């Protein structure tokens, strides 16, 4: 980091989709403009539109879900003071939000801007999941689609789960999945914007252990192992010291970026070891090396649990547990909100929701909330010996990964 960078004024819309009481698939729903405006405006109102130098959007594939491209043009739509200012959209599938953070950091470090509005969004409920699967499959290599599963990404991670089962035991691993699911829903119940906020299921682990049915879904995962289809947006203001001054923001209301790292793998290649998230591992290791910290100093993590198995593997990729021991680590409650390292404290992708392009930004908003004491009912205790927060955002099957490490400013 060639200069200090701070995040502040984060905002999440609700994650709308099945599970929310207000969601009715048969009724018309708000479009992308609604989400962009709500999240964008919330941040702009806190920092002042006139103070913003530029906007960075993350979105996966509005061109297909909403027939809309040229996303940068939505910046002046948020506030007319953003008219004629720079605006950029980045895309890396489910890792788009992380790319937006990294891109924002780099823009700030370039010296060309001091205050950037970073906003991620996705509105997926415009089509049924069976057709949405076609759209989401574009996060994989197109040439793999034909031989892929009807539910393409669940199919990919079902294969990973199968490999993990074979190596470490099916029942053992599924116990970890079930606990992951329970943690996700229990955390989501504490966050009013979460898609699973209204979930009242009294026996989550039992539900999570429902046998997978390959006739209607995939071989090694059930629907509770998967994040849902979501509409939502998340936005946050990211700025330099200069920017803080300009906006009149107290550092107490911010988190500081300690380090970040990106890693990319070949889209056309299959994972060499399906039981590991190797690209995630690279990004996380590099970010921690740059931050000069060890996993033992992490106070909370927002991991990319598009599937329970991805959550378990992320625990291992960080180095909190050895390969094959992630399920045990989770099952023992160490990732629960009162555990060693609370993970996904507002529900993560499974509990809070996964509006694809918003997810990476949502993770940053959650860390900002937790480290500044703005997490409401979902607030966890950040212990002094573990002051760091981490976000891991992953695009596709461990292809486009961004890891960011945060702490409260001195």
């Amino acid at each position, binding site marked *: 980091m060639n200069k200090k960078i701070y995040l502040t004024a984060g905002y999440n819309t609700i994650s709308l989709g099945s599970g929310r009481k207000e969601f009715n698939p048969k009724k018309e729903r708000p479009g992308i403009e609604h989400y962009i405006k709500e999240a964008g405006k919330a941040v702009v109102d806190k920092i002042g539109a006139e103070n913003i130098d530029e906007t960075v959007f993350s979105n996966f594939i509005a061109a297909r879900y909403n027939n809309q491209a040229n996303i940068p043009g939505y910046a002046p739509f948020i506030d007319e003071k953003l008219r004629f200012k720079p605006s950029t959209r980045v895309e890396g599938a489910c890792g788009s939000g992380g790319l937006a953070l990294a891109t924002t950091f780099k823009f700030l470090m370039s010296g060309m801007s001091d205050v950037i509005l970073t906003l991620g969004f996705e509105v997926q409920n415009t089509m049924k999941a069976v057709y949405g699967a*076609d759209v989401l499959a574009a996060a994989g290599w197109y040439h793999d*689609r034909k031989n892929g599963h009807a539910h393409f990404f669940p199919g990919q991670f079902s294969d990973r789960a199968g490999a993990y089962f074979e190596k470490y035991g099916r029942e053992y691993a599924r116990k970890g999945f079930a606990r992951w699911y329970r943690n996700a829903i229990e955390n989501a119940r504490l966050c009013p914007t979460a898609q699973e906020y209204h979930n009242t299921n009294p026996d989550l682990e039992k539900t999570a252990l429902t046998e997978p049915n390959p006739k*209607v879904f995939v071989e090694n995962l059930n629907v509770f192992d998967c994040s849902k289809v979501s509409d939502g947006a998340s936005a946050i203001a990211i700025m330099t010291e200069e920017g803080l001054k300009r906006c009149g923001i107290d550092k107490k209301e911010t988190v500081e970026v300690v380090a970040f790292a990106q890693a990319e793998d070949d889209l056309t290649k299959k994972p060499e070891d399906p039981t590991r998230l190797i690209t995630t591992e690279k990004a996380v290791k590099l970010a921690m090396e740059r931050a000069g910290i060890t996993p033992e100093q992490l106070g909370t993590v927002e991991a990319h649990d598009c599937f329970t198995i991805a959550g378990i593997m992320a625990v291992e990729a960080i180095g909190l547990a050895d390969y094959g021991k992630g399920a045990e680590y989770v099952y023992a409650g160490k990732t629960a909100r009162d555990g060693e390292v609370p993970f996904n404290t507002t529900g993560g992708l499974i509990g809070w929701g996964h509006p694809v392009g918003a997810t990476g930004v949502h993770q940053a908003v959650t860390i900002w909330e937790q480290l500044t004491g703005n997490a409401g009912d979902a607030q966890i205790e950040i212990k002094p010996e573990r002051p760091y927060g981490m976000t891991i955002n992953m695009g596709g099957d461990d292809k486009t990964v961004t890891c960011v490490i945060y702490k409260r400013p001195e």
Partner: protein
Amino acid sequence: MTYDERLSNVSVLGAAGKMGSGILLLTAIEMTDLSLLPENKDKVFVLNAIDISDAALKGLIEYVRVQTRKFAEKKIVWLREMYKDNPKLVHNAEIIDDYINKVVQTVRPSKRMEAAYDSYLIFEAVNENPELKVKLFTQIDENNPNEPWFFTNTSSVPIHYLNEKANLGGRIIGFHFYNPPAVQKLVELIAADATLPEVVDFAREYAKKLKKFVVDSNDFAGFIGNGHFMRDALYGIQTAERLMKEENYSFPEAIYAVNKVTQDFMIRPMGIFQLLDYVGIDVCKYIMSVMNPYLSDEDLHSDLLDSLFEKKILGGQNSDGSQKDGLFKYEKGKITAVYDYETDKYEDVEPIAAKIDAKLGELPEGHIPWKKIIRDKNRNEKLARYFSNLEKTDTAGARLAKRYLKNSRAIGLKLVSDGVANSEEDVNNVMLTGFFHAYGPINDFLNWEEIK
């Protein structure tokens, strides 16, 4: 002849009707699925949709197109497997569109009976008119060299009657779907004594492929489903008539009261008179008239239905599935007014409801509406608690409900003792799966001896 060969050329008579269209849809899907199997690659499957109206046949094709999409979406995993060797169709959406086209192409709409002359299997879903059915079967059988099998969807005409009159030599079986066939799980299977065993075997396999739940009924007019429903409805009419005569209810008040008791106090999906409207008053009257000649110890007939029919108070459904007015007037499926027999006008339901609800009394404690209880995992436990409270309640509504339940149970038991149903379980299964009841009529929820 194999299962696949039998289904290679099929005709549906009355294909554009309420039941026929569902039967056509399910059969078109089953035939298309067979055509996708590698061993059937070069075979052609033909499904003749025969009906009398061009407009209705056009609507039928649209219905098939829309409904097939829902089926295709649910079995996309299997479809992708079937399409795996076709490199041009990659996305789920492409495969589903292609599959819908294949199903639609299987269907050949026609107004000409001649289309059925090449078929190996004939589904019949025309009006519940025995003579019409006999005429069509005879005509097809005389002109079709394949000795086709006849599957009739009749809900009331004895199969042996059709077999004998049309001289089919046992190539016929009752295959009674419930409305709407695409959704309802139940099929009543009725083999006449003369029905050939291979016809029965095929019918079972076909039902299994359609994922239907089969209840065997013996060959008595009305079978189990209508055997229960028609008598239950008649009891409802008699109860309403008694309320008018003995308790000074007006006609609309009596209709409202019995409907309320049967729906709410008895936790059924709809009240008995709404169900009459749903099925159609004309249809019910007709079914009773078809059944009645075969019944020696009872008179299954209602003067009220006859005169409602004359006054053109018919119920039934519009082609879009919405409810037509009958004993009740409906808006978006909700009852807004009740028919008054005296004035031949509809009366607003609200004042009637206010008066009669007070008369019937509160619902007993532990009442759970049908919509909720049907999804409850501890359904029977909760029903037992509710019915035990009902038993102790002495309001007008509770008294009517108890007697109604007792009668409904007696109808079920008689179906078993008369040999229509093979078991009490079969009666209950028909009411549970064909009528969506939350509990079977033959149960031990109440102390039946005590109810007078």
